[in-house]
Each structure stands twice: as C-alpha cells, then as structure tokens.
C-alpha cells in the first residue's frame, strides 16, 4: 500500500509536465487530462484512506522511502513520504476540492485560449501541495512549500497582460519569500540542534533542546506560517491575489495553499508545546488576524476581496486554535476542512456570479440576482450559512469548538481570546450577510447600467462586453455541479466530523488531544455564539436589507475608509518597508561612495601624486643624474665617517 503514496504526488506532476511541455496539440484535450489526473490522485487518496481505516489506530501511519536525495555523513536529506491521519486529511481535502475546482475551471476558463497552460499550473500546484503535506522531513516539506509558492505566482499572474495581475503575482511571491526565509532558518536551527530534520526524530527529541532554542525555532516556523497563510504582518498579498482567475482564488486562497501554515504549526506541535512563548505568539497572531481580516471584509465592495478578507479571518481562527496546543489542534484542522468546503463553494459561487455579470466584481452593481441564478443562489447561500456558523451546518461545529477551546485556555488570556473569537463570529455574520444581501437580494442595480458604454471590468475579456447590458444567467453544468457538491460538504461535513467526536479521535494519535474545560459551560458558549451571530446578521440586515444600497459607495467613516484600503497595510508597508528600505539603501550607497570609495580612490590619488612628483627626477639629463650620484656618494661618505667617529 505504501508504494501508492508517491503516485499521489506523481499523478498531478505528470499532468503538469505533459500539459506544460506538450504544446498546442494538447489544447483540445488538455483540460480533460489535467482533470483526470487530479481525479486519479483523489481516487488513490480514497483507496489509501479506506485502507488506513481498516487498520488499527497504532498502525495507521505509512512510510515510503523513495531515495536518498543528499546522503552526506550526518546530513541526510531523503525523498521520503509519511502518510498519517493528519496528512491523509489534507490529501483528501486537496485532491477532493482540487478535482472539483478542476471540473469547474473547464467551464469557467472555456473562452480562455491559454486554458491548457492554466490546467498545467493547477496540476503543478496540486502536486506541490501534496508534496508539502506528505513529506516526512522538513526539507522535503520546504521543497513542496516553495513549489506551492511558485505555482501560486504563476496562477495569480495568469492574466499577466494586466499590469495589476502581474504586480499582484510579484507581491504574493515576494511576501511569501519573507515567510520562506523563516522556514529555512527554522530548518537550519533544527539541524544544528537535533542533527536531523526528519519529523520523527525532531519531534521526539524536543525534550533535549533548550526552551530558548525551541522558542526560536517556533517563532521562525510562525513567520513561515504567517507568509503562506496570510497572517498579520505578512497578510498584504492575499487581497491582491484575487487578481487571479476565480478558480485560483477558490483553490489556492481558500481551500489549500493558505492552510499550509496551519499544517506546519499543527505538524510541529511538539515544538510549540515545549515553547510556551512561541505558542503565545501564535495565538496573538491568530487573534489579531482574525479581527483584521473580518474588519477588512466588512468594507470591501469587490465580492472577491470581501471573501479574501473572510479567508484571512477564518485562517486566523485556525492559527489561534493551533496556538492553543493540544486542546486546539484537532479543531484547527477540523475548521480547516470545513472551511475548505464552504470557502471553495463561496468562491466558486462568486465566480459563477461574475460569469453571468460580464465579470463585474462590484457588489454595488449586483442586486436581486437570486431569480436569475437559482443554483448559484442556493449553493452560495448554504456556504454563507456554513461560514457564519449557523447551527447545524459545518462552520457551526468547527467554529463553536474553537471558541470553546479559546475560553478553555484559562485565566485572563482565555477570557480575552474567547471574547475575540466571539466578536470575530459576530463580524463574520455581519459581512457575509452584507455580501449575501448586496448580491442576491434587494432591487436590481445592474439593469440600467449606470455608466453604460464603459462597464468597469476587472477581467480581461472586456472588449466584447463594452456597452452591453449585463444579462445574468445560470452557469453551465460543469460549474454548478462542483458548487452543489461543495454545498453538500458545507452542510454536512461538520456534523459528520463531530458525530461521536469522530474527527478528534481520528487525529488524536498525531496531534494529541486533551479536553478543554471552559470556565463557562459549553452550552453557554454555544448560546452566546448564536446570539452574537444573530446580532451580526441583524445589523447587516438593518443596514443593507431594509434600505436601498447606493450604487456609488458613500464616503464612509474613517474606519471604513481605512478598511477599504486593507486597514492601511499597504501604506504601512510602503512607509516603513519601502521608504525605510530606500533610505537605508541610499545611506548605504552614500557610505559606499564616501567611505569605501574614498579610501580606495584616496590611496590611488596619493600614489599617483607621489609618483608624478618622483617622475620629475627622471628628466633624461645625464648631468642631473650625475649630481644625484655625487650627492649620494657624499652622503654615504659622510655617514661612514660619522659612524666611525661614534
């Protein structure tokens, strides 16, 4: 069985190689090939899953050693895989949601002449992500990690002819590099501390390392997670990454790539458990991002950017849960999986809306779409109910557990974290209701297009739309079927996982689990969650449902305006990092010119000047040479006489 593990990675990799090297003759069938190989990977994953279920809890982890990559004395980098319950969960999520998004893309990218290349990149992405979660050592994980970064760069910048997309791709790549630096430093620290970077030995030996070293490793891992999972302070790339085609947003920036950070922290749980300071940092990052993303989500009029803010916020929940230690790991992963379903569903729904609305992304120009896109409306609506944590749906089960675990942290910390998570749930309900109402309810704001003739379009296929009225229509079957399947997941996954604590028991051998005891009863937590949630929905309804939504955004309060600009994160980066960097380089250049060049040029000039003066002695006149000879002789004789005299 373990020989199948490599095939999980190999199938999409093969697809990427064939599609990207195959050239134009594959244009017709390329998308089918890509989808087929993604599906093949899912089937292999399912086979391995059922095989794993058939074995006892203690024997479920599988290992496959392919070959030694860099075998040097004590430095052993192996291409080896480890498939345990945690990896298995990710494999099923990645390949399952990934395959659905492949199917969706067949319809969504139908009119794009570079569709084959798009599927190649999607396959490359899947393969890198699978490598990341299947690796049995940090170095191979790093390889997958970089692969994911590369694939996301290619996909965000897929419409590279748009300068905004090209810039967004570059931005995502650069911000990710900052995080990658953290991961590489963490790996180096691990190697110097433990002499290895394979999961097994490192995580088993955490007792032997000093707490300071473990904290350093933990903080570096957290930096890495911040980059990939778009957490404060490395969150600025996620909003701009919405420049990519919508399936990319669904796949990379909702269901899989941004979860890599959560995976990393959960996988390295043993390190964080032994380093409370690093754990505290994780919790703080999660809590800050949770509110940050939620506030940004409230102010955005671009449907995809509102969802991006929501993604940031939900990942914040997961990071926070992962920072709580063994009481939170399982719930972090559970929320990750349910989030994978409903967020992918929401993004695909948003893509479907855009598909029917001439690629318009401004929600202020939607309105009343439920009659025109019934399937999209229902699936998006179920995703909406799931994400706000409506009782009974997926999001409820996982988010409620995280809030409970946050309270169970104990002490003042527990109360603060609990309050933050509750507040986050309320804001989530508010902005998601806002998205829902602005898109599907209310009066039509698109029929008399306000500035017909110049439909502002963020997507490239604008030329044939210019001047045409939007004509909302339901999307083709290849797009609606994945949405329906994801909606099923959004509704039932959470309940299924929570039935008999099935999910927690499943992950327990890997992540360990201990029951948290919140200071208030679980029932009270749930009740207050529901109250907060209904309050959020109510406020949103009062603001957007009861009165017409203005087509042109009102000026808004100071906070709104800041949130529209992503809470000034880009301005902050610009002032602190860009300007600061410019000043730093300028002063370095000045130093280089004056100090370094000064010394070198000064030496050269003084040697030159001296030799210019010495050169004058060589004038070619024999008589002046004779004078110097006489002079020298006279000095020599005088010196000799003087010395003898002494």
């Amino acid at each position, binding site marked *: 069985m373990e020989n199948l593990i490599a095939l999980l990675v190999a199938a999409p990799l093969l697809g990427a190689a064939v599609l990207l090297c195959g050239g134009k003759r594959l244009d017709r069938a390329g998308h089918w090939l890509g989808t087929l190989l993604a599906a093949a990977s899912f089937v292999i994953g399912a086979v391995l899953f059922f095989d794993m279920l058939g074995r006892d809890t203690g024997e479920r982890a599988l290992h496959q050693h392919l070959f030694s990559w860099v075998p040097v004395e004590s430095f052993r980098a192996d291409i080896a895989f480890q498939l345990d319950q945690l990896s298995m969960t990710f494999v099923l999520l990645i390949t399952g949601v990934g395959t659905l998004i492949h199917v969706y893309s067949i319809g969504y990218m139908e009119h794009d002449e570079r569709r084959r290349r798009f599927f190649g990149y999607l396959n490359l992405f899947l393969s890198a992500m699978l490598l990341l979660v299947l690796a049995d050592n940090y170095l191979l994980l790093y390889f997958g990690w970089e692969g994911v970064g590369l694939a996301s760069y290619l996909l965000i910048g897929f419409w590279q002819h748009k300068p905004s997309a090209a810039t967004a791709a570059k931005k995502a790549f650069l911000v990710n590099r900052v995080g990658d630096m953290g991961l590489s430093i963490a790996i180096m620290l691990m190697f110097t501390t433990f002499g290895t970077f394979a999961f097994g030995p490192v995580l088993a030996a955490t007792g032997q390392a000093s707490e300071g070293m473990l904290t350093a490793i933990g903080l570096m891992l957290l930096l890495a997670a911040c980059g990939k999972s778009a957490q404060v302070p490395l969150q600025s790339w996620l909003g701009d990454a919405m420049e990519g085609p919508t399936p990319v947003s669904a796949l990379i920036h909702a269901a899989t790539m941004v979860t890599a950070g959560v995976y990393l922290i959960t996988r390295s749980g043993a390190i964080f458990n032994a380093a409370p300071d690093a754990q505290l940092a994780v919790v703080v990052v999660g809590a800050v991002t949770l509110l940050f993303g939620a506030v940004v989500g409230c102010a955005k009029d671009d449907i995809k950017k509102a969802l991006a803010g929501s993604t940031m916020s939900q990942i914040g929940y997961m990071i926070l849960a992962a920072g709580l230690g063994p009481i939170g790991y399982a719930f972090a992963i559970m929320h990750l999986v349910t989030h994978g379903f409903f967020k992918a569903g929401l993004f695909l729904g948003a893509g479907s809306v855009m598909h029917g609305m001439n690629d318009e992304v401004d929600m202020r120009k939607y309105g009343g779409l439920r009659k025109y896109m019934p399937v999209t409306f229902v699936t998006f609506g179920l995703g909406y109910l799931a994400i706000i944590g409506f009782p009974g749906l997926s999001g409820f089960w996982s988010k409620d557990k995280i809030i409970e675990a946050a309270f169970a942290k104990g002490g003042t910390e527990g109360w603060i974290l609990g309050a933050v998570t509750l507040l986050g749930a309320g804001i989530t309900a508010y902005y998601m209701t806002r998205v829902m109402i602005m898109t599907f309810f209310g009066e039509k704001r698109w029929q008399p297009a306000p500035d017909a003739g110049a439909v502002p379009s963020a997507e490239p296929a604008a030329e044939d739309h210019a001047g045409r009225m939007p004509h909302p229509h339901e999307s083709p079957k290849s797009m609606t079927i994945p949405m329906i399947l994801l909606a099923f997941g959004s509704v039932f996954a959470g309940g299924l996982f929570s039935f008999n604590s099935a999910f927690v028991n499943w992950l327990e051998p890997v992540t360990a689990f201990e029951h948290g005891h919140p200071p208030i009863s679980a029932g009270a937590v749930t009740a207050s969650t529901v109250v907060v949630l209904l309050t959020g929905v109510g406020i949103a309804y009062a603001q957007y449902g009861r009165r017409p939504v203005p087509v042109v955004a009102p000026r808004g309060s100071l906070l709104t305006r800041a949130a529209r600009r992503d809470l000034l994160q880009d301005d902050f980066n610009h002032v602190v990092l860009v300007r600061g960097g410019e000043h730093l380089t300028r002063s370095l250049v000045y130093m280089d010119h004056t100090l370094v060049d000064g010394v070198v040029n000064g030496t050269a000039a003084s040697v030159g000047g001296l030799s210019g003066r010495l050169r004058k002695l060589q004038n*070619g*006149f*024999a*008589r002046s040479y004779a*004078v110097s000879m*006489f002079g020298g002789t006279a000095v020599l004789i005088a010196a000799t006489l003087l010395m003898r005299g002494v």
Partner: protein
Amino acid sequence: MNPVNYLYLAALLFTIGAAGVLIRRNAIVVFMCVELMLNACNLTLVAFSRMHGNLDGQIVAFFTMVVAAAEVVVGLAIIVSLFRSRHSASVDDASLMKL
C-alpha cells in the same frame, strides 16, 4: 717633499673634474673631465703607495689606466655617432632614449 701635497693636488684635480662633469655641456669636455677625475684617483693611489711603502696602489693605478684607455675608445665612438645623428655634442640634447 711631503707626499701629502700630492694628495692635495689630487683632491684639487678631482674637484675640477667633478665640477666640469656637472657644469659643462659639451660631451668632449665632460669626457675629458671624467679622465681628469680618473687620473686624480691614480695620483692618490700612487701617493698612498709611496706613503705606505708597498706597491699595491701602483698596481691598481695600472689597472685604472687600462680600463680608462678602453673607456676612451668606447666613449669617443659613442660621442662621434651621437654627433653624427644629432649634429650636436651637447649632453643636454641627448635627454631622450630615442632620436
């Protein structure tokens, strides 16, 4: 006669020779001044030989004469060819190693 007087004479001759080498421009005169310095040295050698009562100095004076004769041959040849190429016997005109 006190042999020290020979030494005074030699010193005087040497000084005249040295001053001539430094001051005069005509190559022939410079050359003659060099000979004057050589002979001043010879005179010193012979005078010391006489004062110390051995022949070493006189023998060295012979060597000097032989070398000076050889030097005259080479030096005059150089001066003649220099004069032919530059139409001047001034040492200051020959300040470059090319024509």
